């Protein structure tokens, strides 16, 4: 089985002016000045978002000199903060807002919230605004989804030569170019997030997030299941949360039907003041009476974890999304070719795929060999 994993590098290759991290952050900031900014969806006064990102940039400077260490609460935040420092400390004096990857702004946001004791729902609401602004910038008024038109025939042939294609990208270029189904590990613009689907189990619970909310179909991608956060372990948690929830609710529904004591306990949750407890109770009761209901599992990460055969990796940076590399390292892949952009990436990939490297099954080839239709060769 020939597998292919594609990252954002393919978009940067065919439009070097629009999809790098710097250009996306620049577009996020400039979009805040647009007259047609979707204020009904992202934030009612975009200047507030722009200025908030400016304040987070000033927090970044504090983070680089260790002043935010005390605010990193979870293991993931501490690891992300350490990686943040390693990434930016050498350019601290000249750092501009656009030099910081947007996903790192989520970390800065969380640290800032911890420092001034802001919790949910406000912390979540602001993060969602940031997420929507990010997706709005990436989508780039639809131009992103047209990049496949620039793919040369040999690139399309390379893509099509694989049996399965996985990607961390949200766009549909790979589908459009190859005519194949593609597994979007981090979600995709054209797939609705469960919370916006009226028919989902989520919207059958009492708080029903979609109630009284009117979606604007022009901005369908802002309602998508695209995942974006500052660290791979949070992404992995998000990817697996629905399958985990389904397993829990299924088991609880079974016990609810068979154990009167449990039934009484769960029934008491239905009127609990805590909305999480109340929702769980309702989900169990609904599942017991309607077994077909479930939280839709929107990311087929299991297929990725279970892949076998050969894997080519193209356009994926090894400096983020460590959960992806961890899954590859633990999979049944017997040969992996990493198409690198810079030679520094190769050392990092070797660290991230120790099993493959140790067995001599990890190979490196310059990505230009694909872009420029040169024959690949073993490293």
């Amino acid at each position, binding site marked *: 089985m020939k597998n292919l994993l594609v990252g954002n590098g393919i978009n940067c290759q065919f439009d070097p002016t629009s999809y790098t991290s710097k250009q996306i952050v620049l577009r996020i900031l400039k979009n805040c000045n647009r007259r047609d900014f979707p204020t009904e969806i992202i934030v009612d*006064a975009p200047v*507030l978002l*722009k*200025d908030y990102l*400016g304040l987070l940039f000033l927090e970044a400077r504090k983070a680089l000199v260790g002043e935010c260490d005390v605010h990193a609460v979870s293991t993931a935040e501490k690891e992300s903060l350490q990686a943040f420092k390693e990434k930016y400390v050498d350019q601290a004096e000249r750092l501009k807002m656009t030099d910081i990857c947007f996903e790192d702004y989520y970390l800065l946001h969380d640290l800032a919230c911890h420092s001034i004791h802001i919790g949910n729902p406000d912390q979540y609401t602001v993060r969602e605004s940031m997420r929507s602004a990010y997706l709005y910038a990436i989508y780039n008024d639809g131009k992103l989804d047209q990049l496949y038109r620039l793919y040369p025939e040999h690139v399309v042939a390379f893509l099509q030569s694989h049996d399965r294609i996985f990607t961390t990208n949200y766009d549909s270029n790979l589908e459009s170019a190859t005519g194949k189904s593609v597994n979007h590990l981090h979600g995709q613009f054209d797939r609705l997030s469960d919370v916006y689907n009226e028919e989902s189990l989520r919207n059958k619970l009492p708080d029903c997030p979609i109630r009284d909310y009117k979606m604007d179909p022009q901005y369908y991608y802002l309602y998508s299941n695209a995942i974006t956060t500052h660290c791979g372990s949070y992404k992995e948690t998000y990817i697996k949360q629905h399958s985990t929830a389904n397993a829990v609710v299924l088991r609880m529904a079974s016990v609810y039907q068979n154990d009167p004591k449990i039934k009484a306990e769960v029934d008491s949750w239905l009127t609990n003041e805590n909305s999480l407890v109340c929702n769980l109770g309702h989900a169990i009761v609904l599942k017991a009476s309607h077994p077909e209901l479930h939280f839709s599992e929107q990311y087929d990460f299991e297929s990725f974890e279970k892949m076998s055969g050969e894997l080519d990796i193209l356009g994926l940076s090894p400096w983020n999304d460590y959960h992806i590399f961890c899954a590859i390292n633990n999979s049944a892949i017997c040969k992996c070719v990493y198409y690198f952009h810079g030679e520094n990436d190769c050392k990092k990939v070797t660290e991230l795929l120790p099993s493959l490297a140790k067995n001599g099954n990890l190979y490196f080839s310059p990505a230009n060999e694909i872009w420029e239709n040169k024959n690949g060769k073993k490293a």
Partner: protein
Amino acid sequence: MAKKHKPGKIVFIPANETEKWFRTANVFAKSLISRSEAIRLFNNLSAETRIEICKELSEYDSIRKSAFPHDMTENEITDQYTTSVMVDAHILGTEYGTDPVVVLMCVNPPCKPNQKVIVR
């Protein structure tokens, strides 16, 4: 043999004046680079770029005037105004390949657009 500079291409400015110029810009830019580095980068900008930067800053200022929510207090707007100018300086700094403080130094510099500044 010393290079002959064209008349008017260099202007000598007293140190205290360049310091004031740099510091005023940096109240908003909050840059970490030194004054001498900022002046070096400023001198590298062409006249056309300096004029273009000024024009864009003026446009951003026009947008800013009507951007703040009506229910904000004057103090809140003042605080956010400073940050907003900083962010715009970062936007233009990225687009023109220079530091944000240099962007703001293009506003009311002690020289003409086609002149380089040397600290006296």
